[in-house]
C-alpha cells in the first residue's frame, strides 16, 4: 500500500472552513504550488453482502463528514462488484468496508480483485470495520487491506489514520 508523506497540490491558504487537515499538511510541508488546488479526501463507506446492520456505517459516515471529508455511502446489501464500481467511478481515496456478518474472507478479496482490475488498488486506502476475528486479520492484510478497526476503535484514531495514510494521488 502506498503510504504518503504529504499532499502535493495545496492551496496556499486553504480557506479555513475547508478541511483542517489540508491546512495542517500545508504547514508541515511549508510548500505550495503555483497553480491553486485543493485536496479533499473522499471516502466510500460500503456495506457489502447480506449484512443488514448499518448503524455503525451511519455513525462513521457522519463522523467522517464532520472531520471534513466527503463521504459517499453505498447503502445496504451491495455486491462486491457494486462496491468496486462505486469506488472506481467516485475515485475515492479511502474505501471503508463495514462487515458484521462474518463473510469478510469471501467478500473483501473479491473487492480487492475488482479494484485491481481497474488499476485502482494501488492508490485506494482500504479499511475494514466490524467483527473480524484476530485469526483473519493477517489474511485480510495480505489481500491488501491497510487497517482493520474492530469494536472499541475510537473515531479519532480512525480519522487520524486516514489523514496520515490517505494515498497520494497521481
Amino acid at each position, binding site marked *: 500500500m502506498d503510504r504518503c508523506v504529504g499532499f502535493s497540490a495545496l492551496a496556499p491558504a486553504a480557506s479555513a472552513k*475547508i478541511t483542517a487537515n489540508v491546512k495542517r499538511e500545508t504547514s508541515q510541508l511549508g*510548500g505550495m504550488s503555483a497553480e*491553486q*488546488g485543493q485536496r479533499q479526501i473522499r471516502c466510500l463507506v460500503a456495506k457489502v453482502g447480506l449484512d443488514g446492520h448499518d448503524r455503525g456505517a451511519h455513525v462513521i459516515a457522519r463522523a467522517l463528514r464532520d472531520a471534513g471529508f466527503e463521504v459517499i*455511502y453505498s447503502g445496504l446489501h451491495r455486491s462486491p462488484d457494486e462496491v468496486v464500481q462505486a469506488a472506481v*467511478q467516485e475515485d475515492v481515496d479511502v474505501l471503508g468496508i463495514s462487515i458484521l456478518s462474518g463473510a469478510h474472507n469471501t467478500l473483501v478479496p473479491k473487492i480487492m480483485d475488482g479494484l485491481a482490475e481497474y488499476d485502482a488498488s494501488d492508490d485506494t486506502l482500504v479499511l475494514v470495520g466490524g467483527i473480524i476475528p484476530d485469526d483473519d486479520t493477517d489474511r485480510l492484510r495480505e489481500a491488501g487491506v491497510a487497517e482493520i478497526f474492530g469494536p472499541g476503535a475510537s473515531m479519532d484514531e480512525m480519522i487520524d489514520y486516514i489523514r496520515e495514510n490517505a494515498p497520494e494521488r497521481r
Partner: protein
Amino acid sequence: MTSGDSDSVSEPTDGLDPLIADLLDGKHRALARTITKIENRSPGYRDLVSQLHAHTGDADVIGITGSPGAGKSTLVDKLAATYREAGLTVGVIAIDPASPFTGGAVLGDRIRMASNVGDMDVFFRSMSARGTLGGLSTATTDAVKALDAFGKDKVIVETVGAGQNEVDIVRTADTVVVLVPPGSGDDVQMLKAGILEIADLFVVNKADLEGSDRTVSELREMLQLRDGDVEAGGHHGFAETTVDVDSERAGESGDAAVDPPDADPWDPPIVETVADRGEGIDDLIAAMDDHRTHLVESGQLESKARTRYAEEIRTLLREDTRELLAAEIDARGGLDEHVDAVLRRETDPYAVAEAILEPLADCVTDRRERD
C-alpha cells in the same frame, strides 16, 4: 504545470496528456481521475480540460433540479435505466451540499441508483458543493465535458435547486427539468425564486400522492399567468374585463424586458411521474425529446451554446483577473499600508482601488493601441 503532478502530466507523447488519452480510450479510471483533478483544481487541470474540448459536443445534457426529497435521484436512476435499454450510455453528476463549517459532506444520491448497479456504462459521480474558488458551476461544466468527451450519449446533472449557484449549474444543461413534489406549498411558493424561469419541463413526481392534482393545476395556472404577460394581450376569457390594466402593464414589461418574441415559443409541459414505480418515465423522455427537437429546429441549441461559451470565457477571465490582481497586490507589499491610510482618513477605498488598478489599465491601453 508545477511540482507534485509529474507522473500524469509528464511529457505528452503525441500532444495529448496520457490521462486524456486513456479517457478517450474508454478507461473508467482515467475518467474518474480527470473529474477528481477538475474538482480539486489540481495543477494542470486547465490543460486537461482544454484537450477535452475538441472531443465534446455530442452529448445531450439534461439538468434535473428540485427540492430535497422531491425524488430527483430516483427519477435519474429510472431515466438512466430507460436510456440504457435503448442502448444509450449515460453519465450522471449528482451534486449534494457540503457543510459550510467543516467542508465535509455526505453524498447519498448513489444509494438510489439501484437499477443500474454493476453497469459500468452508467457513470455516476457524486460531487459536493464545495463552494470554493471560482464556484461550483465551473467544475460542473468541466466535469460534463469530461463525460461528453468520454462518449456518453446522455449526461444528467442533478442538484438541489436552491440558490443562485445551483441555478447556474443547471444552466449548463440543454434541457432543464424541475421536479415539484405534491403539496409543496401554495401558489405563492411557485412565484418565488426563479423556478418558473429556468424550467423547460416540469415533473410532478409522486403523482400518486394526495394533492398532486392541485399541484399540477397550480403549476398550469402559474405558467398561463406567465404566458399572459409575455403575449401582451387578454385572449383568455376573464382578461377581457380588465383589458386596460392588463395591456398597459403587459406593454411596459414587454418593451423593457422581453426580447423580440420567439417565432416558436416553448411552452413547458407538465409531466406526472411516480419515479419509484417507473410510471411516467416514458412520457418524460418523450417530452424531453420534444424539447430537444424544438431546440434544434428553432436554432436555440446553437444560440444557447454560444451564450454558454461566452459566459464560460467570462467566468474564466474573472478568475484569472482576480489572480492577476492578487499577485500584483502581493508584489506591491500587500494592502496593509493602504488600509492604514484609509483608517486614518487620508484616503478612501475607492481611491486605493483606482490607484492599484491604474498601472494595469495603462498597460492594457498601451497594448491595445500598439496592436
